């Protein structure tokens, strides 16, 4: 039985983007704005319908499948389907894109209809990576994301946007090249003449050195996307120069593509290599993944400590948080305890909601406080009261305050790591302390200092529309922080 819902969610944004692109000149920027908002709300509605349909069906494995042979001779098929993991990510995507559109409401700049068209195109690309169950199509969606992001950063971004957009484009494209080779190698090694993830996942791959090298190639592509140290250097520039709504999508969704790729392709398809492969004798592959994750946590954290710009600080905290995802996945492979994997995925969702909120706040600071520099933002509550409250709340959420989503994620990952190796767990706990450190220090300087003169001159009142998305995001963070069970159950249905 072929389901229409996934193709609809996937194709609606790109069709709307086409309409805006072709008719934008005549219909004006406002038309583009409202159409994009309507489309993103419709997408959220469709994702809820998708959730209901998913829960009603009872098959094991992937549900809501739709399959169209695309190039049969070469084993390339258009397959879309979801399991628990991709379902939560799709809902997250629809939600965050809507929030980003709301955050773009007060944007200035020329040719805004093109801006909204590109955001819609980006949505299709991101949804494609989560929905496509064919490696070729997965790659197409993966690369498709790069082009709109290049233009969004390059045209509407900050002062150093030309460098940042080129760096982002070239760096991530170079990494994707290894993904393509890895996909080809996987296709050929399996001998099944198909690119379908469903069929390849059931195949037992050899775990010799050749396959490990293939694995490392694909891992490289995902590590650059996640991003993990030391291949993270595109992120701070891209984030800082991108306009805030674009940063929201970049941090909330693009980074999750990397984590999802690791889980779907490296864990499900090449799981044999992940579990049993050795890089050098006595060092299993999953140790490499775990160590890279751990390094990211600390590298991101320490560099965040040094930042003067709030947005740069949040960018490095993204690197740090995504390190937990890698650590969780590695712990799952090491111990087979599903809790570790649930923690990793929950961290993706948690960070996927908290981080866009933080970036929106950075944008608000930029526009309505006049600066993002921590030194100049002293005594923020005197000028921007509500914004300060929300800043404190989300900073604590990101730092892992119990009761909010971040804590659940970190806790579950920690359980998994503890079961794997107690030393690693103790080092990870120090990482949590580090996270709290840089957030608290930032808050101390920004919120609890003396009122700064800069703010006196430059602060402007914040329009109410900005708060809509922030409140919605906070509700999500609070509800699932207090009652994470429904989400966790969804992830338990995974691999």
């Amino acid at each position: 039985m072929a389901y229409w819902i996934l193709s609809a969610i996937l194709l609606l944004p790109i069709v709307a983007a086409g309409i805006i692109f072709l008719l934008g000149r005549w219909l004006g920027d406002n038309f583009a704005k409202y159409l994009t908002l309507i489309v993103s709300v419709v997408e959220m509605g469709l994702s809820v319908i998708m959730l209901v349909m998913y829960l009603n069906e009872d098959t094991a494995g992937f549900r809501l499948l739709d399959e169209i042979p695309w190039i049969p001779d070469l084993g390339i098929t258009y397959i879309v389907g979801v399991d628990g993991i991709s379902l939560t990510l799709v809902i997250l995507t629809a939600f965050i894109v809507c929030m980003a559109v709301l955050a773009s409401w007060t944007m200035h700049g020329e040719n805004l209809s093109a801006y909204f068209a590109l955001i819609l195109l980006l949505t299709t690309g991101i949804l494609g990576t989560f929905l496509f169950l064919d490696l070729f199509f997965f790659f197409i969606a993966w690369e498709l994301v790069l082009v709109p992001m290049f233009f969004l950063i390059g045209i509407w971004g900050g002062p150093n946007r030309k460098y940042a957009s080129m760096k982002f484009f070239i760096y991530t494209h170079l990494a994707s090249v290894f993904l393509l080779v890895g996909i080809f190698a996987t296709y050929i090694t399996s001998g099944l003449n198909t690119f379908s993830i469903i069929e390849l996942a059931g195949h037992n791959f050899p775990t010799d050195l050749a396959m490990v090298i293939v694995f490392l190639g694909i891992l490289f592509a995902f590590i650059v996307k996640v991003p993990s140290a030391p291949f993270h250097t595109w992120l701070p520039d891209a984030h800082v120069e991108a306009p805030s709504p674009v940063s929201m999508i970049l941090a909330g969704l693009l980074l999750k593509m990397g984590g999802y790729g690791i889980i779907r392709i490296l864990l499900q398809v090449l799981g044999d290599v992940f579990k049993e492969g050795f890089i050098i004798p006595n060092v299993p592959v999953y140790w490499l993944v775990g160590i890279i994750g751990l390094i990211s946590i600390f590298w991101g954290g320490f560099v965040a400590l040094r930042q003067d710009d709030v947005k740069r600080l949040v960018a490095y905290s993204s690197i740090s948080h995504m390190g937990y995802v890698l650590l969780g996945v590695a712990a799952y492979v090491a111990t087979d305890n599903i809790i570790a994997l649930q923690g990793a995925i929950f961290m993706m969702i948690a960070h996927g909601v908290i981080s866009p909120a933080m970036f929106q706040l950075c944008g608000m600071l930029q526009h309505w406080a006049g600066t993002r520099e921590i030194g100049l933002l002293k005594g923020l509550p005197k000028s921007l009261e509500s914004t300060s409250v929300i800043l404190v709340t989300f900073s604590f959420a990101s730092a892992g305050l119990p009761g909010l989503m971040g804590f659940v994620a970190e806790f579950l990952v920690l359980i998994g790591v503890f079961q794997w190796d107690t030393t690693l767990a103790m080092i990870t706990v120090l990482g949590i302390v580090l996270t709290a450190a840089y957030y608290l220090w930032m808050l101390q300087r920004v919120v609890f200092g003396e009122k700064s003169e800069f703010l006196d001159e430059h602060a402007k009142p914040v329009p109410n529309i900005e708060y809509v998305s922030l409140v919605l995001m906070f509700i999500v963070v609070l509800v699932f922080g207090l009652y994470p069970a429904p989400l966790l159950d969804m992830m338990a249905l995974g691999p």
Partner: protein
Amino acid sequence: MEELLTLFEFWPLTVILITVFAILAESYLKSYFNIKRWYMTFTALSGLVIAMIMTYLPYLESFQPIFISPASKPGYNNSLIVIDKFTLFFTFIFILAALYVIITANHKLQTDEDESTMGIFYVLVLLATCGMILISASTDLLTLFVTWELLALPGYALVAYYTREKLPFEAAFKYFLLGGASAGILLFGMSILYGFSGATNIYLIYTAIATQTEYLPLLIIGLVAIIAGLGFEIGIVPFHWWIPDAYEGTSPAVAQMLTIGSKKAGFSAVFRIILIPLVMVTSTSSISTQMQQVIFSAQILLAVAAIMTMTLGNIAALKQKSIVRLLAYSSIAQAGYIMIAVAAAIATPDQLIAQLSLFAGIFHIFAHTLMKGGAFAIVVALLAVGEYRNINDLTGLARRSKWLAFSFSVILLSLAGIPPLLGFWSKAFLFLSAVEGNLWWLAVIGLLNSALSLFYYARIIKIMYIDTAESDIPSTEQKAIPRYIWIPAGLSVIALIVLGLFPIIPIERILNIAGETLALFTAIL
């Protein structure tokens, strides 16, 4: 009767020849009947369109390949040309290229051409097209040589066409000298192959070579000489030196013809003379071990040529500021990618991998024709609009000419291999065939090169969309884009997007062609 039927199967060529004579007649009679240039353009275009339709006729019924041999010695063993699906598809590509060239050339012909030579341009292009078609059909070395010259001589004249300017003359001279020398080397290689078999027909030659055990180093020299001779036209390193100067020195339409016409004809010759027969040789059961070593060396040689070509093309393009020179080096790099297919095809005795490699090569040739055809049309548009020759002249083009910038961006992204455009699919299959043929290192280098190329393609897009200059030229100071340029440019853009979304359309056809052509060769022997 049979000869007439044969002519019917190859109507495309006949139609083009008729068109040539028609234009010559018009040119001769122009003073008597007051014939304007656009009559001749119309004649040329309609002739080409009819010829293109003719390439599909054989597909209506069941189609058997037709070997054309002298009446005294019939059969494939003595054939001079063969009309099979391979020939017809390449004919389609060459006619498409000729259409692109004729429409693109209109701008310069309108402004710069001499009254007295009106129409000669079209005749030269059409004759060159005939040469290309026959090259792709040749099954005999001497036929190949003759048709090679049929392509080359009008080519030399076309490069030098606007003799009032100094630069075309220098470009044509380089092309001519190197072309003459390469033809000589090609002939030398052919003579060696003749020495091995006593025949010039490729079937006879390779049947003899397959079981050869002595004098094999001489065979390698022969093959290298042939690759050198053909490599000149294709533009592989180190025979590529004429390309940037020739492309820049001549008018963009002729550069377009060189890159989408002559280069592709060279590749069709490589496929016919080197790739397909060597695939047959590798799968022969009675092949000697020494011969296997020769094939292995040939494969390494081709792979190294591919690597050098890709790398040099891409690295040199990084430094280019002139748009046409950048496209010239980009063409060199793209030729390198196609050479990967040639290397991969003869790597293993597996017929399926050979089919995949040949398919990938032909597919990329098709895609590249569309891409560079559109690119050079846009070059002409850029010259018409404001004499933009340098990439820095394009600053802020997106604001002044939205659709021109968009078309150029689509073509550049497709050249870089960004999904979901057609260029991605053709490149992906090239690298897939390399990995299948166990040449994974070649695929990795190829993909790294592809990522490298993104830098100079994206830089142009960045300049058009993101850069702003203090002295931004206001759009009112630009001249209008010639309307007809949108035919080739728009066709390319639409084809790249639509075929990129639904690649099964060309893939099915080309995969079938590759399979049948290989099967035909191996079945005969």
